[in-house]
């Protein structure tokens, strides 16, 4: 293997046909600015057409190409081979999700939990649009930081609490919940807070920051979860309405 090549160990598994998963090893020629997505495309185009993976935008916006790359959930399109600093790369599907085939995971459990927190804005009926939160307000600044989630599932795959407790809502859903709970124009904030305040909600987070470490958008869902916990307690004492 020359210095212009990398060895890619790729997870292969078809639940309908294979008894157990395996790793296939491919030698891939490296090109300038090559991303991991290019590696799997190379395998699919030139070596093994049966390799399954998911991708769409290729520019880190859609969040569909999240994979477990060298022991860490990352977006395949935004992970340059050179940034890994090794000539061997291991590519696996995102953890904590069922495998459809090879590197493609079933995102349904992730989005089922996403739905539980009612991830949409419901305006107060007495408010007449447009009602704005001033761009320079503290509230706006905090919400803005957390709005960039692309639902890639990297945080969900990295979260050790999701791995331990399958009912736990997970960092992405809770982060989304916080952006809405923090919005004073929202009319179902208390209802949303009750949904995240159940035992499978915010209380299962133990501030390990795994989610923040892998988020490709540099969000810190742990911070949002802490804010939600605080509001759950305030709501209990009638301070949050």
């Amino acid at each position: 293997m020359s210095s212009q090549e990398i060895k890619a160990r790729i997870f292969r598994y078809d639940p309908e046909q294979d008894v157990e998963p395996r790793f296939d090893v491919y030698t891939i020629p490296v090109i300038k600015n090559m991303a991991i997505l290019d590696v799997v495309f190379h395998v699919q185009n030139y070596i093994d057409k049966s390799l399954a993976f998911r991708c769409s935008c290729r520019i880190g916006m859609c969040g569909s190409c999240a994979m477990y790359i060298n022991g860490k959930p990352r977006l395949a399109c935004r992970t340059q081979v050179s940034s890994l600093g090794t000539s061997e790369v291991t590519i696996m599907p995102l953890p904590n999700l069922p495998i459809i085939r090879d590197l493609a995971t079933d995102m349904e459990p992730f989005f089922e939990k996403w739905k539980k927190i009612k991830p949409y804005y419901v305006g107060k009926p007495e408010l007449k649009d447009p009602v704005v939160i001033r761009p320079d307000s503290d509230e706006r600044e905090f919400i803005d930081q957390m709005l960039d989630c692309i639902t890639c599932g990297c945080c969900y795959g990295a979260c050790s609490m999701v791995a331990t407790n399958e009912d736990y809502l997970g960092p992405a859903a809770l982060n989304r919940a916080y952006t809405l709970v923090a919005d004073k124009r929202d009319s179902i904030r208390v209802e949303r807070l009750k949904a995240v305040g159940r035992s499978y909600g915010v209380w299962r987070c133990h501030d390990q920051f795994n989610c923040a470490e892998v988020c490709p958008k540099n969000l810190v869902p742990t911070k949002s979860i802490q804010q939600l916990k605080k509001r759950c307690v305030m709501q209990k004492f009638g301070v949050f309405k």
Partner: protein
Amino acid sequence: MRVNAITWLFQRITAAVLLVLLGVHLWLLYMNNTSEVISFAEAKARLMSAPYITLYVLLLLFGLFHALNGLYTVMVDMGIKPRKTAIGALLAVGLGLFGIGLISIFQFIM
């Protein structure tokens, strides 16, 4: 949500209180002792004074709550079901240990 929120808050409050109480406990035993070797009579005298008894009853109460609630949290994290059985068992253990602790603290008064 109510129980979760309150136990979460109490877990933090007890942690903070325990830090203070354990500090006082260590200071009393290792810094404020009157002699090199603690005699039985001195230990007995301590456990007959109201401030010491108050300190150790509080330590027992807060320590037990913190430990058992922490254990329950780990059990829920691991997906234990049914939870009511776990809560019942932990309450029984807690009450039992609290009783034994009280007997130990009040043994020179009873």
